[in-house]
Each structure stands twice: as C-alpha cells, then as structure tokens.
C-alpha cells in the first residue's frame, strides 16, 4: 500500500536472565503509519509464529499509556523518539520508510532481563514497599473536605503521582539511577497532610532500598525528566534530597 513502511529491525534477543543476548535483524514490510510501535512488533511476531520461530517477548498491557508496562529502548531513547509518550503511544508515522530501528531492553543491573525486551522491574515495587505508604483509620472514608490542602501542594502531589513506574528514567540515566521514580513516590505523599505521619522515616527507608537494589547515583543530567512519558519534574529529586537530609538529621 502507498505510504506504508518497509523497515529493518535490529532487536535484542535473549533467552533468559542467565544467558547472554545478541541482536537479530528482521525485515518488516507494509507497516501502516497508523500502527503503534507495539502493533508493528505484533505484525512481526505473527510472522515469526507462522514460521515456527520464537516471537519477540515484550511487556505491554493497557496500550493507552497509563500502565507503564511497555519498556522498549528505541534508537537510543526510552520509548523512542517522541517526548511525553510511552512505546504503545508511539506511532509508526514517527519513522521513515527504509529506516533501521534498533530495539533494546532497559539496561540496568537492577532491571535484569527476563527474556528479549522484558525486564524485571520488581525493584520498584520493593522501593514503594519500603516506605511509600500512609497510615489511615479504617472504616468509612472521611468527608472529602475535612483536610484543608493547599492547591499548589495538591497539584504538585498529583503531578508526582502521575508516575506510572515504567522505568524510562532509569533507562535514560547514564548512571541507571532511580532517583526520579523514588522522588515521585516520596513527593506524592510528602506534599500532603496524610503523608506527614511517616515523613521522618519515609525518605530514608526508600532511599536505602533504592541503593540496595543497585541503582546508580544522580548526577543531575536531567535526562530522566526529558524522557519521562509523564513529565515528572526533577524538582521532586530536590524535594527528596531535602526530605532525606532532614530525616537523616532527625531520625534515631
């Protein structure tokens, strides 16, 4: 069909965590510019299955940019060439006919490859479990306006809570640092009155877990903020640092 794309794909194939992976080259043709990047991989996988080959394993769930599962490092950037989108929202119109596209998994020692493009991001879950919670009374929810909250704080908390935990920040960072993710998870609670009960220990506990998982240190390049599909600001990292310093001074 006219306007459709013929592409060369260089995709990272890796059997499991233990074995070393390598790039395989595939040709795909007749790719509609209206397809999402994941649908393009679907087309390739259909063919691989028909040919009796192992399809390319990749993470995906909602395919509408809110679940944070899709995690491809495309042509040197997490979630591909466009800003503010996940891979499922990346459309093939962003590529040119005849282009070679390199697709890699997130690369970080804290995100081991499970298979092909699928990485294990449970390190993020453990960081949240270490301190990303609040104490509330059980029973009925209280009246909505019982707790007065400054509008700016509510907005900032909401912006931080937009983090979908996809790991693009870690993938983009030259140090594989998880500071943007961790700081978003701290900020969404630290900015609200409900988050004050654990405020003194939260940052310390979550940063300690982050370090234990083997993420790198932050050198403030700002790559995470630029590549975050949800536009999480590095202001959150500065807030986390403030929370961490004050927690370090005041904790027992």
């Amino acid at each position, binding site marked *: 069909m006219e306007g459709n794309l013929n592409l060369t794909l*260089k995709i*990272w194939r890796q059997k499991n965590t233990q074995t070393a*992976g390598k*790039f395989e080259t595939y040709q795909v043709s007749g790719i509609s510019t209206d397809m999402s990047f994941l649908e393009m991989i679907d087309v390739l996988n259909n063919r691989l299955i028909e040919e009796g080959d192992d399809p390319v394993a990749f993470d995906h769930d909602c395919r509408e940019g809110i679940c944070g599962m899709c995690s491809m*490092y495309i*042509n*040197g*950037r997490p979630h591909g*060439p466009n800003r503010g989108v996940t891979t499922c929202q990346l459309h093939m119109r962003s590529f040119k006919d005849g282009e070679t596209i*390199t697709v*890699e998994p997130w*690369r*970080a*020692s*804290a995100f081991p490859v499970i298979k092909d493009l699928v990485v294990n991001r449970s390190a993020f879950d453990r960081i949240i479990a270490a301190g990303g919670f609040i104490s509330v009374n059980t029973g009925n929810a209280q009246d909505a306006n019982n707790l007065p909250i400054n509008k700016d704080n509510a907005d900032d908390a909401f912006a931080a809570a937009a983090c979908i935990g996809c790991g693009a920040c870690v993938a*983009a960072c*030259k*140090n*594989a*640092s998880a500071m943007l993710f961790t700081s978003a998870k701290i900020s969404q609670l630290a900015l609200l009155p409900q988050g004050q009960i654990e405020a003194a220990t939260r940052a310390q506990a979550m940063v300690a877990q982050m370090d234990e998982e*083997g*993420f*790198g*240190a*932050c*050198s*403030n*390049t*700002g*790559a995470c903020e*630029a*590549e975050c599909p949800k536009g999480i600001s*590095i*202001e959150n*990292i*500065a*807030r986390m*640092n*403030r929370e961490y*310093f004050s927690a370090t001074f005041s904790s027992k």
Partner: protein
Amino acid sequence: MAITGLFLISFLIVHCGLNATIFLNDGGVAFNEGAEFMGTNPVIRTMEIVLFAGLLLHIFDGLRLWLDNKKKRPVAYAVVDGSANSKWYSRSMGLLGTLLLLFLIIHLKHFWYFSRLTNDLTEAHTLYNEMQIVFASPIVVVIYVLGCISLGYHLLHGFQSAFQSLGWNHPKYSPTIKSIGAIYAVVISATFASMPIAFYFHLIH
C-alpha cells in the same frame, strides 16, 4: 560533590579576582602585593590546606561515584542518543574533571611549586615575572586556554547541579541560580583564559 564543589567555586572567585589585578597594567605591583599577602598570611595559609583537602575530597568522591555508577549498567546500550535528552557536558563531568586535574598538575607545577616550594621567588623575580616567562610559550598558552574551556563547561553543569543536589530547587529561585551559574562559568573561564593570552601577545607589561 555539591559541598566540595561549592567550596571550590568560592575559591575560584578569590583566585580569579586577585589575578585579574594584572589587567590594571601596573607592571604587576598590585598582583605581587596580593600574592605576597596570600603567601604569608597565616589564615590564608591554613585555608590553603583546607583547599587542598576540599579538592582531594572532590576528586576522590567523583572517582568513587564514577566507578560505582559504571557498575550499574553492566551491559551497555548499542545505540545511545544522549543529545536528545541532556547536555554533553552534563554527561561528561568525569572527563572534564580529569582534564582539569591534568591541567591543575601543570598549573601547580608552574606557580604553586615555584612560589611555595622553591627559593626562586625574590623581589627581582616575582610571581608576576614568572607569569611573563611561563606564558611566553605558545604551547603553554594553548594548554591553559583548553584548561579554561574545560573549567567553563565543568562549572556550567556543576554550579546549578550543586544546588539541585542540596535540595535547592524552587520555581522562584532556580531560574536565578541557573542564570548566575551560567554567567559565573563564562566570566570565570573567560577571565582566566584571557590572562595567558594577554601575556603572550604583550597586551599587558
């Protein structure tokens, strides 16, 4: 990195300000007086030790971070489009710092070694005279200018990065901090770079 970095930033203001007295074009009278004070005042001499300690801390902390961070991505990406999301000098602080360290070794050999560890510094042969002699060599001038360029980019990232690391990121103040950082980086590196150039081309006597 942030605290030692800000300390070194404050030192550069003193160093640059004092050296800029050569542009008074008074044959180095003001400069030599300043150098004499810096070389004899006990408070300044004590701060010199603190300065070396701060510099070494900055170097070793940076080296430790670099080694540590390198381990966090054991399998490298085949394709990295770094310029799409960050500045090259932000990603190259280790490299710029290493270049600066190499420059500093040469620089300390030229002037610190001469004035502190030898007996060659006399009324007849002042630090100002030594600058005239050292900067007569075009190779030395080129090395110094390259050193100043490395310094400028190192500061361009380092200044605002130090504030971010210390948690000072605020919609009201951050734009000002970034502007001051950029002006500081350009002014300091350009002023330093103009010194060997001015001596080489005999713009000051």
